[in-house]
């Protein structure tokens, strides 16, 4: 934004920084403790995944997309599989669709708990950080018990799911949710009223409704600025068609609002999971697959960080002709320029964390 003038000096934040979970280089122009300009340099975790996708067949790409990033590691293969299904007109059995929602919402809860936990760490509130991570452990246990893995669930495959969950697994899930629910309510109270949290997060990194619209931000960042957008409701897919998704909106547009949106979304996800388990249809979990024809298709989903889009083009062979994805963090990056304007140095990591940036997703 700005060039170094006589009054300002440059402060490098990143690519390796305690408060950043992933590498990104921010060159901050400072005037005392006030931010006057931000310059982003990306590319530290570019792995050439879109090129890799063209060298693997359609099935191998499920494994590849699952490894784009660990926190959204279910949303990527899920959306990728949907794009293949859209392209080849594959009808996914109802039970598989419901099981996909279960995996997706479990991952969403974990992801949100992680983000609000890290927020507490950034403001130096380590006890709260430890507490949130301990609550997240409930969901980690659920993932490990249901899917055998704590991060990458490998739940999706083209035409359905890899795991059929049994009644015992659902009972374990419901038990975990019952333990998590009061803790989330308590956390919501802490993030809403604790004096330290409020002093550090309210009116910090404000993104107004107008700016949010103009920048087309997505996910909790948009919902924290009063925009009720959610792909699960606006363009329902899979089992979300039959589910009543509660779109959580906060009006503040600041760091606190975004954290509150995430915590309330956890509550909404808990309700969704219970609804899914209640209404779990019987039947097969995998469709019979046809030959994948040449063509192109798009699939959209609501990842923990917002709208995720997959574009797939095939030429009738086993490997895709083009596979491209647009991740939610990409849309939210630019908003940092507005949020960081005239912010204090102490608030930089806090504001960056509040958009829950996924750098691995963005750079892939």
């Amino acid at each position, binding site marked *: 934004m700005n060039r170094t003038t006589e009054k300002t000096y440059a402060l490098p934040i990143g690519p390796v920084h305690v408060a950043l979970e992933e590498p990104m280089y921010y060159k901050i122009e400072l005037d005392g403790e006030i931010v006057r300009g931000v310059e982003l340099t990306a590319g530290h975790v570019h792995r050439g995944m879109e090129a890799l996708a063209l060298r693997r067949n359609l099935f191998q790409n499920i494994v590849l997309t699952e490894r784009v990033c660990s926190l959204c590691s279910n949303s990527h293969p899920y959306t990728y599989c949907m794009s293949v299904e859209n392209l080849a007109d594959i009808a996914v059995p109802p039970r598989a669709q419901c099981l996909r929602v279960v995996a997706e919402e479990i991952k969403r809860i974990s992801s949100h708990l992680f983000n609000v936990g890290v927020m507490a760490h950034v*403001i130096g509130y380590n006890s709260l950080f430890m507490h949130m991570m301990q609550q997240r452990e409930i969901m980690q246990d659920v993932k490990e018990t249901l899917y055998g893995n704590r991060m990458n669930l490998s739940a999706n495959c083209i035409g359905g799911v890899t795991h059929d969950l049994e009644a015992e697994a659902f009972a374990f899930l419901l038990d975990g949710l019952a333990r998590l629910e009061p803790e989330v309510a308590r956390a919501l109270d802490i993030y809403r009223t604790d004096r330290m949290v409020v002093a*550090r997060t309210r009116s910090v990194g404000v993104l107004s409704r107008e700016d949010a619209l103009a920048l087309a931000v997505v996910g909790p960042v948009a919902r924290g600025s009063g925009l009720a957008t959610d792909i699960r409701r606006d363009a329902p897919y899979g089992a979300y068609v039959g589910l009543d998704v509660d779109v959580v909106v906060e009006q503040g547009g600041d760091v606190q609002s975004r954290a509150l949106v995430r915590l309330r979304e956890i509550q909404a996800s808990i309700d969704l999971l219970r609804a899914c388990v209640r209404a779990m249809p019987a039947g097969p979990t995998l469709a019979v697959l046809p030959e994948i024809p040449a063509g192109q298709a798009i699939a959209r989903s609501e990842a923990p960080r917002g709208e995720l889009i997959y574009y797939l083009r095939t030429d009738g062979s086993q490997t895709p002709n083009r596979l491209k994805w647009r991740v939610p963090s990409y849309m939210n990056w630019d908003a940092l320029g507005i949020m960081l304007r005239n912010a204090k140095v*102490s608030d930089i990591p806090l504001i960056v964390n509040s958009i829950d940036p996924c750098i691995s997703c963005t750079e892939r």
Partner: protein
Amino acid sequence: MELTLSALLHMLLFPGGVFALGAGLLLKGVDRRVQARLQRRVGPPLLQPFLDLAKLAAKETLVPETANRTAFLAAPLIGLTGMAVAAALIPVPGAYSGMPEMGDMLVLFYLLPLPAIALMVGGSASSSPFGALGFSREMGLMLAYEIPLLAVLLAVAMKAGAAVGAGPALSLTVVVGHQMAAGQFGFSPAMLPALAAYLLFLPGTLGVPPFDVPEAESEIVEGPLLEYSGPALGFFHLASALKTMVVLGLGVDMFFPTPLPGGALVNVCWFLAKCLALMLVSLTVARAATGRFRPDQAFTFFLKYPAPLALASLALAWMGF
């Protein structure tokens, strides 16, 4: 000559030097352990601060190319020596009566900021922008917490002096002696605000959350300490351990000095126990229950709460309560 020798021994062995270092590091170990338990973690072994130092001693000290080498390497020593002298001025009631001829509370007031000044010198000599940020933060915070400290010291001196019928008694030996005869200040209603102010001053001067703004790890990555490594970093840790002991000991002497009947050994342990209690209340629990203030918030906080509290006690002591 005799005086110098005994003064040296007091600075190097007891109650300064080896004793204060050992006790300070041990207290830090307890602090980390209790802190971990409050967060439902296991925590490090009690001797972890010693192990950390041993590790640092074996490492290399790297000096940044653009740093001012002399200032960069001298800075940690400023803090360390300052605190070693200060530790010798703290009486251990029942075991050591202090060195009134060497210095009083005013000397302590001048010695106490030395580690912070060392941090500022080191930070700015390191030529890192994080060091510069830490410098300005430490500077602002210091100005804020020195005001309540001075008011607390004066209130205590005034109260002890009023009883003798003289002006303020600045000698810690007199302050301790007076309380042993006339009751501890920690239980005197007029001095309670000063005690509260001192408890709030402790995390500020020691750079402990919620006042760890100069070193804020998740904001400015340890600020002035960022470029330090090896023994030079170890010296900062040593100075910090000494300072912990000095300010806690000063607090005990000012508010709860009464010794137990018994030998010197009993009273050294009793003194350490009181330091520990003071630390748990003002540092460990407070740290577990809060986050970190923004620099401006920390600054306002000190002017808003501890300063008026300490001044209230000073006014009450002045009026003879």
